[in-house]
């Protein structure tokens, strides 16, 4: 009987611990910093600079959330994760948020029990070939040798695409992007395929980028976004609306330069609600009302982050493309702040 009571108490304690853990916001506040899972290194998206400070497009999401929740964009513990460890790190509670160029797929959302908090980059799989090959379309790649990273969705996409178009290819399996660059430049394969953003940044590092072309075909949808655990909707909302705040800020013309001025009050009620001048939106998910202002001040609005990390002024040189505002013909569409 005594043992039974003991185990009963233990179970109750375990359940209580589970409940306590569910409020990620309280955990983050108690800890004083946000634990954010990132890639161990992907050009433009996350990389440590010479001083060991993480920089990049994905990193900026972590910093914005930390600024919104804790008021300090530097209050982030970055946990570098690999393709294998990222999901376990999130579901075991080691990290609060995963911002690691992760494609939003059905099975990851449903089966792995994660909640995607939106999309910060619309990517797609493309092909890079040497100009000498004289190819101008992916349809002409029949019989080509193709460098491809093993164990990724790109491998499956490639197989699907070639089968659908009745073509054959010879895969050259490689492990990392760096290895792929070496193999491709050494002529071990005619074609290198991975996400278009990765191809662009890879080509930018070549000694002769003008001799390599990206083919126009994009053969897959790769919507990349930050994700959190299932079951803590409040936390998912915070991440989701922080991302929307960055996107909306660009739409409404709020930049890191004019934000302090706009936060004194404007004629536009939407901007006023977003920056916490009126409406009291922040309190609805237990943050201060100026949460969005702090998030935007951390690294600027979505457009500013994009152009400083992966945009056309950087060596990576990505065009906005699908990642433009909906008003500019892109897919970015922040829900109304009301």
């Amino acid at each position, binding site marked *: 009987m005594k043992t039974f009571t003991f185990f009963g108490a233990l179970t109750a304690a375990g359940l209580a611990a589970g409940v306590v853990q569910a409020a990620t916001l309280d*955990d983050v506040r108690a800890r004083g910093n946000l634990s954010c899972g990132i890639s*161990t*290194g992907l050009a433009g998206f996350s990389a440590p600079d010479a001083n060991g400070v993480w920089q990049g497009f994905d990193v900026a999401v972590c910093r914005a959330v930390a600024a919104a929740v804790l008021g300090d964009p530097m209050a982030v513990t970055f946990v570098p994760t690999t393709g294998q460890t990222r999901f376990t790190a999130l579901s*075991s509670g*080691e990290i609060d948020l995963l911002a690691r160029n992760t494609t939003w797929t059905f099975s990851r959302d449903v089966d792995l029990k994660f909640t995607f908090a939106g999309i910060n980059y619309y990517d797609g799989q493309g092909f890079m070939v040497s100009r000498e090959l004289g190819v101008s379309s992916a349809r002409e790649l029949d019989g080509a040798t193709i460098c491809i990273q093993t164990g990724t969705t790109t491998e499956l996409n490639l197989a699907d695409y070639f089968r659908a178009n009745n073509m054959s290819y010879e895969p050259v399996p490689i492990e990392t992007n*760096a290895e792929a660059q070496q193999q491709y430049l050494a002529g071990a394969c005619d074609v290198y395929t991975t996400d278009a953003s990765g191809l662009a940044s*890879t080509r930018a590092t070549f000694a002769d980028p003008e001799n390599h072309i990206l083919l126009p075909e994009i053969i897959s949808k790769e919507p990349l976004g930050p994700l959190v655990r299932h079951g803590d909707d409040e936390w998912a909302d915070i991440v989701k609306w922080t991302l929307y705040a960055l996107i909306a800020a660009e739409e409404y013309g709020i930049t890191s330069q004019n934000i302090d001025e706009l936060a004194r009050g404007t004629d536009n009620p939407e901007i006023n609600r977003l920056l916490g001048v009126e409406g009291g939106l922040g309190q609805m998910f237990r943050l201060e009302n100026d949460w969005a202002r702090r998030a935007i001040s951390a690294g600027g609005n979505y457009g500013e982050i994009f152009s400083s990390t992966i945009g056309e002024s950087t*060596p990576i040189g990505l065009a906005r493309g699908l990642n433009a505002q909906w008003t500019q013909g892109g897919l970015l569409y922040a829900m109304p702040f009301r």
Partner: protein
Amino acid sequence: MSDTHAETVAFVRDTMLPPEPPPVTEIGAVRWVRENLFSGWLNVLLTLGAVYVIVWLLAHIGPWLLNSVWNAGSLAECRQILDGATGACFAVIRDRGQQLLYGFYPANLYWRPNLALLLMVVALAPLLFPRVPRRVLWFSAVYPAVAYWLLWGGSVWFPVSVLLGFPAGYLAWRVMRPAGAILSGIVAVLVPLLWWAVVAGPLAGLLQSIVPLGLRPVRSDQFGGFMLSIIIGVTGIALSLPLGIVLALGRRSDMFLIKTLSVGFIEFIRGVPLITLLFTASLLLNYFLPPGTNFDIILRVIIMVTLFAAAYMAEVIRGGLAALPRGQYEAADALGLDYWKAQRLVIMPQALKVSIPGIVNTFIGLFKDTTLVVFIGLLDPIGLSNSIRADTNWNGIYWELFIFIGLLFFIFCFGMSRYSQHLERRLKTDHH
């Protein structure tokens, strides 16, 4: 009559000829070359082939190395300086070398890992070289706590109160000794464990509140680079040897329980790849531990690496034990030595000496295996090379980073290998 001979013999030498130098083909470099490189048609062919390969390699790598650029801010700048010529861009080492060595450890605190490394040499000296005074061994005993404090920082009282667990155990053993060997042994193990679980934490807090003394704390996620490899490697090496000895003895023990446990442990660990254990440390343990526990990832990895190396070490040492003739055991028994004394004075010194090549082999393997932590997202030199390439300045750089990392590992592993050869010569007791 003296000219009788003159009629039969035309010439008689009456002085000795001065010794002639040996023919030029039989001395020095020419002889060496003839004997070693061109002693037969097969060797001539092999020599010519080898010379061709060497020249070919030098012709390709030589210009690349000679043209190295050491001063540039990015790969693009390197290429601009080289202006189309082939050349290495070692500027990345200049820019990121500190990161490859220390990870993200704060730059103004580099003196702490440096000092820890220096003190490690001091602590190892009495173990490695017999001429160093024995008293230094006391420092070796407290060195792990000193190194922990230097590297991670924080209150000095935490490592001190953890260290105090050992004298506490010894004291308990002294007090309980009249009550019998088994009971005092159990108490000597239990008391330190209780001390660490219950007393050490609050005591450290109390002492810190009375005399606040500490270094700036550095979080584990700021550890990286070669420093991380050395921390994991050295700790694993230092702990796996004693653990391996215990396991080897356990496997040869007559006691059923101890033997079964040792065999089970060794066979299980040897049957599982290291990478699996690392994934267990990084992923699986998180599910088992209560939510919110922050069990340091580096500590988890060190434990797994140590267990892994200990299993291999146990088998190496068991090989040494098996090599000893039975007479050595019987001689120890005949002298009236008990089990531990026999092991300490007769068996182990010989068994370990026999096992030196195997032990060092395991050490070197363990040290190189530390690079596997890259797969669980720890930034050891290999992991950092990936991160450095992700910086747009250095994206596309490849061999330069690996050459630097390879060189660092070579220095360590070659050093270990040379020391083991020195040790074998020193301990050689058979006279030929």
